[in-house]
């Protein structure tokens, strides 16, 4: 009944999303086209048309496509986690790293890897780690009864430092021959990503959960009291956001390790152009985060091929100057 009306009244919301979706599609095509083996456009089209040589089919459909999709899904998850954490903390500079979420996930995942567990168990451990970090941070920050974003942020920063120390400890006691792999994983690396479906389905699930919450999140961004006064059940909503951010971060971390800056940068940059309507920012963050990581991973695969760079290096190299520039501009 309201459906038609929703669509009619929202071209303003959809315009940028159409462009971002196009960019996402292009980034996927680019990721398919580029690799250490050069393929001609004709060969590319042949494979996409369901034809082509066996080798080319394998390269495109078994190697590049799953990896490009995994990159897209991971970027989308990281950007979504960032956008959610920023609303949760009422701080445009928050991201899953700041609150120790990814730290908890990384420590648990590393420990599981060291114990020789399989990928499914590593994912489970990462989620447990992110959740444990969540509970500790929220539990401690809540201790005095007040639950101000500042207190939360401070607790999270300290927790993140603690996780960092544990990561260093795990690296120090792990076998030398496994160090390079663990280090690459910590730097953020899609070379180990298996099937793209976990990240993609969690991204879809996350979007399905947050999209109906869009306007509510807009209200929450104005502060907890203001949101409560406008009819938002603040505490349950904040828990939902934190749990969702934990799940999303854990899945992203198990797929690609710690890829920095996507969660921080993407929502922040989009906000400069699109304002802060979550109904626009959240889907836009997913699309832009996915596109960014797909492009970054394509660079990581091809820049010095056949040597492979971890994608986290690319996002950080792009992210740091971009972020400093934005910060500089916002001070004016």
């Amino acid at each position: 009944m309201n459906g038609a009306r929703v669509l009619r009244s929202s071209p303003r919301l959809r315009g940028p999303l159409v462009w971002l979706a196009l960019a996402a599609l292009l980034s996927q095509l680019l990721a398919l086209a580029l690799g250490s083996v050069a393929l001609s456009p004709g060969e590319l089209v042949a494979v996409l048309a369901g034809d082509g040589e066996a080798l080319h089919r394998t390269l495109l459909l078994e190697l590049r496509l799953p990896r490009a999709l995994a990159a897209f899904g991971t970027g989308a998850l990281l950007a979504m986690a960032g956008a959610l954490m920023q609303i949760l903390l009422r701080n445009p500079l928050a991201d899953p790293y700041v609150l120790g979420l990814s730290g908890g996930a990384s420590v648990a995942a590393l420990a599981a890897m060291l114990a020789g567990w399989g990928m499914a168990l590593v994912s489970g451990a990462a989620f447990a780690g992110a959740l444990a970090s969540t509970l500790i941070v929220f539990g401690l920050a809540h201790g005095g009864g007040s639950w101000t974003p500042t207190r939360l942020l401070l607790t999270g920063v300290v927790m993140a430092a603690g996780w960092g120390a544990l990561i260093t400890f795990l690296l120090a006691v792990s076998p030398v021959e496994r160090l390079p792999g663990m280090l690459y994983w910590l730097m953020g690396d899609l070379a180990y990503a298996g099937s793209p479906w976990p990240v993609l389905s969690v991204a879809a699930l996350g979007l399905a959960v947050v999209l109906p919450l869009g306007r509510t999140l807009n209200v929450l961004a104005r502060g907890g009291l203001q949101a409560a006064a406008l009819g938002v059940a603040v505490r349950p909503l904040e828990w939902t956001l934190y749990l969702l951010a934990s799940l999303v971060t854990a899945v992203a971390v198990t797929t690609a390790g710690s890829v920095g800056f996507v969660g921080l940068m993407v929502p922040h940059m989009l906000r400069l152009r699109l304002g802060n309507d979550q109904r626009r920012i959240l889907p836009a963050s997913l699309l832009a985060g996915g596109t960014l990581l797909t492009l970054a991973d394509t660079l990581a695969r091809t820049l010095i091929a056949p040597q492979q760079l971890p994608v986290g290096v690319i996002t950080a190299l792009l992210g740091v100057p971009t972020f400093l520039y934005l910060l500089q501009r916002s001070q004016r």
Partner: protein
Amino acid sequence: MSGLAARGLIAKGLVIDVPGRPDGRPLDLAVAPGQRWGVLGPNGAGKTTLLHTLAGLRPPRAGEVSLDGRALARWRRRALARRLGVVFQERHDDFPATVRETALIGRHPFLSPWRQEGPEDLARADDALARLELSHLAERELATLSGGERQRVSLATVLTQAPDIWLADEPTNHLDLHHQVAAMALLAGQAERGRGVIMCLHDLNLAARWCSHLLLLYPDGQACWGPAEAMLTPAALERLYDQRLVTAWLDGAPVFVPAR
């Protein structure tokens, strides 16, 4: 819900929770439709805490607040937000937003999750912006506004919400003389239309001029309340602010000036 007694916002035996302060005198007061309550008191007397408690945003230490005969705790937040509107003194403008978007969030309690704001909601927000002389700023970013303009946007948001009970914390904060009067006239107009208004005020003379009822809140938790004319005695006010006052009568209302 028997008769008029239960209508409006009613505090029974209410002790607000200011940490480290004795209970003082429990409050028993009713903000009935059409009344304009002013809350006066020095800094730290608990005016904002009282307002938040009356809005159900903070639990009281003792007693109960009810709306239309039902305790606030038993209201669903969303249903409550359709009846109670709060003008906050503190604001969190960490994220970019335009003036119109900000006014529009007043419609939030009335819209289901999937529903976009429609033309009717936009019209309400634009009316509210026009009423507060903000139409020309509708597309501006909040961050570019002056303090007074920002304050008027807050009033416009609650006007868009159109609640039965207004709870306003320093509604004239940052406003110039003209807009102070405009803001008080707006709240008085709301009361005339049968809404209840309760506001914290710093300015004695605005309170004397615009409020029908007053609540004097002392820092030690003591309080007294009643119709404005009964409360505006120099002795009580001097004790309230610990400041000698000179009283004059102008335009049919008392005017209080601090004595030198």
